[in-house]
């Protein structure tokens, strides 16, 4: 069971306070109608699901109700850090946006 640092509340809290929000940084296509079925299906359903470092979202359900970004290793459950959505995006981009 994890302890996650909520970047808004500024505290480490137990996992039970949080909800898992799935893979982070899957932007909604700006013009969905311009996509073919496969590209739309990719956005809807395809996920990286890496074995290793994973950028993901959690929401602090019982606390500030904010979504934030966590970088977690799915092979070990080690956590590299938590960020607000905006800060997380910067950190993710600085890594080249890869896993």
């Amino acid at each position, binding site marked *: 069971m994890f302890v996650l640092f909520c970047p808004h509340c500024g505290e480490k809290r137990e996992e039970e306070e949080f909800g898992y929000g799935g893979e982070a940084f899957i932007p909604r296509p700006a013009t969905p109608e311009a996509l073919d079925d496969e590209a739309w299906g990719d956005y809807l359903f395809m996920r990286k699901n890496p074995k290793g470092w994973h950028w993901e*979202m959690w929401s602090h359900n019982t606390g500030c109700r904010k979504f934030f970004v966590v970088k977690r290793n799915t092979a070990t*459950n080690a956590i590299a850090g938590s960020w607000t959505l905006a800060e997380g995006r910067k950190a993710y981009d600085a890594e080249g946006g890869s896993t």
Partner: protein
Amino acid sequence: MSSYRVRRPGARVDFDKPLTFSFDGQAYDGFAGDTLASALLANGTRMLARSFKYGRPRGIIGTGPEEPNALMQIETGAHTIPNLKATQVELYDGLVARRTTGWPTLEFDLKSLGGLFSRFMPAGFYYKTFQNQKLWPKFEHIIRQAAGYGSAPSEPDPETYDHSHRHAQVVIVGGGASGLLAALLAGRAGLKVVLLDEQNECGGWLLSSPHSVIGGEQASAWLKSAVGELQSLPNVQVLTRTSAFALHDMNLVLAVEQLQDHLPIADRAAHQPRQRLHRIRAERVVLATGAIERPLVFGNNDVPGIMTASALTTYLNRYGVAVGKRILLQTSNDHVYQGAADLARAGCEVVLADTRTRINPAWEKRVRAAGVDVRTGFGIAYARGRRAVTGAQLVKLDAQRNVVVGSGPSIDCDALGSSGGLSPTVHLYCHDGGRPHWDEERLAFVVPEAGRAKSGIYGVGAVTGEFGLQNALEQTERITRELLSSLGKSAPTSSGNLKTDEPDATPARRIFRVPDGRAEGHGKKAFVDFQNDVSAADIHLAVRENYRSIEHIKRYTALGFGTDQGKLSNVNGFAIAADVLGKSIPEVGTTTYRPAYSPVTFGTLAGAHAGDTFEPRRYSPMQAAHVARGAEFEPVGQWLRPWYFPQTGEDLHAAVRRECLAARRGVGIMDASTLGKIDLRGKDVREFLNRVYANAWTQLAPGKCRYGLMLDENGMVMDDGVTACVADNHFLMTTTTGGAARVMTWLEKWHQTEWPDLDVYMTSVTDHWATAAVVGPKSRQVLAKICSDIDLSPSAFKFMDWREGTVAGVPARVFRISFSGELAFEVNVDANYGHHVWEALMDGGREFDITPYGTETMHVLRAEKGFIIVGQDTDGSMTPLDLDMAWAVGMKKPFSFIGKRSFARSDTAGPNRKQLVGLLTDDPQIVLAEGAQVIERADVTPPAAMLGHVTSSYYSPELGRSIALAVVRDGIARRSEDGHKSGRDLLYAYAGGKAHKVTVVSPVFVDPKGDRQNV
């Protein structure tokens, strides 16, 4: 006192407090401080179980959680507990214990007949026989008759359990010498420390060895002062009778504290839970879990009276029980020597057979001085005796290789202890992904001493392979200082003199299976896992059959799968497998363990999540009013809602019929408080709504309401509800009862992740508003009686309008919306006034015979109108178009709203979609089953193609006939508008073996033009 009792100085039993208890109906004596095991041994009981597979007589082997045989049924009736290990049951006066194996009696066990044919029942024999699938149930029945140890009680549990969530800087698991020292150092440094020990007092091995020396004083004195100091430190909490059973990610230790089981039932405190689950989140975890001695594997090593050597010592020194008068000890190492001397000094005749030819001279001198007969270079080929050990045949071993080189003496004994070395208790270290490593010198899987310091996990003492007391203490001090400095602390003073009187250790012999000079499988059965009757030969067989991975070996033979979790057996099993495979032990695999370290009561896991606090039950503000009126309730999500309000003698159908007619012809009232409500405000609210709803919201004026459909990005309907425009930048959304939380999170997610720039805030006001829906042609008259400041006239207050005013003296928002198709007003007030307003409406409606109704009538009324219930008429595979609700989809909105793009996919846009329709049975009195399948022909011979299913079905009192909603393939085109021209409207609905003829019609059965809600 029985002849097995020895008054040992330093023993932890109180000879001044005699107790009585019973085992299998016979009364016995014991003393306070005994375990059930020590008391039984003191009474001379040797056989107290039969083995699982072969029915062999079995006795006590160990002293704690490693015990594989002595599984007991403790107490009777509602208090009974199955499978407790006698070694862990603290004796109390009046304790009732029963055996869990041996049928019909312990003396004669039916399984022992099978045991005679054990050569035909090797590991995995099930897989090779009983291959007739038809006969297998019969075989299985017989197998199940013989299965299992104890029994669960058949009555509800009279005791309770709870959880406690703690946070500590340092958690130390194990209160032996190392754990105590670590706790002292951390405690003195001012850290918040929790020390856990599974026994009734701290001390660990020191309790079995009270005459050891630490820093010049006796261990018992050192122990007393250490415990005393810890108790004086306010920042240190010592929890005894508390077994740490799991270590989870990020240093979460789970431990069970026993609060009651050691007390006579009559003395247990009713207000205290039986057990408490501590969930302790720690910055640092120190594993000081010690080690468990493993026995050697030799022929007939399961005969009662054969134990681990340390168990013999513990029973003597801690419990004052000399298990035998003539004792044979078999060892491969130094650990048994102190105990051998103690046993001899206690008056036992002791023969010590060491498999080594070169033994520790210092120890040899000490034991010989005590009168021990030491024989070197001998192993036990097999033990003698059946229900109690009577002796053993020794063989001469080669000095290096584990082979027999000659015969040895036959030695008589009435107790036999063996030691193959110590197995560190590495269980917890494995739970969160740690892997112990094999130490070939110490012949043990050990936790590295710095553990995984990076993640805050340390090991000290025997668990790291430091088996000597002095070494362990010195190492503990060193490691604990490292730990302290990692937390920015230092140990203020030296822990003083930690010197002991142990001689330097001599290397142990690498031996696990003592050879008997015969090929494996030819000699006497030599057990590795006692509880699962796994012998050395079984491991050989597994390897022979190519079950070569250690996991295969374990699973094929069941090695380590018992309730002792392989504490005695795993290393021996690994070593034997390694020998057969010609590999080293680490090549065979690393031992790993899963929680629980020792079994945990289900009730403890559940804690307070039981009975009326199992899960939240949510109530509306008007709950008391409903209870007072005799409502029956229906769980809807977490809520409990009134289902119907039966009057005397009414069943569901009669009540619903009365309620429906009241709403259609007079006035009814329903509690709609449970609907989700979200207040949205900001200048971009309309745009936000345009994006999250299928509908368009740009034109909705203040004072107006609109029904909306919410879709997921897959285009499927996920929620619906009415949203009101309060002001240009202010809306109030309602959601389904079950969907409220999901919708709130959904909206927040979109806003936070995709559209943070939209000026909109949303706040749940579900609980703020109490909502009473007043429904029916007379609803206006009812409302008029208690609301004077809203013009309720049809021209001033139209359908889908809302107004602010005062109802029953309370500020209210009144919505003229309808889920029944009738004239209706939904009155919303501050929930604190919900009960008051409900009663006021009931009072005001009395002259109109106002009738409260529940969810069932609500369902009938809405089904008569073809209004959907999301989750009942939809199942996550329905688009608005499938529901024939294109009117609620704003395809022209500039922003591609959530779900829109998915409509255009080939399948979603394709033909033959399932679509919402109405169904009418030919026989108007037949009410179809909800969930009936719609088929084309009356022939129901499988496979019959299904076109859809009935989603809602009721008897309509208004129409005097049954009605149903269904989703049917291409249903909209099948609807019968003008007779049965094409015949495609004629179908069958199948349920419970019957097919009923139905006609596909429009889903709107009552008032198709919608006139009634507009009056």
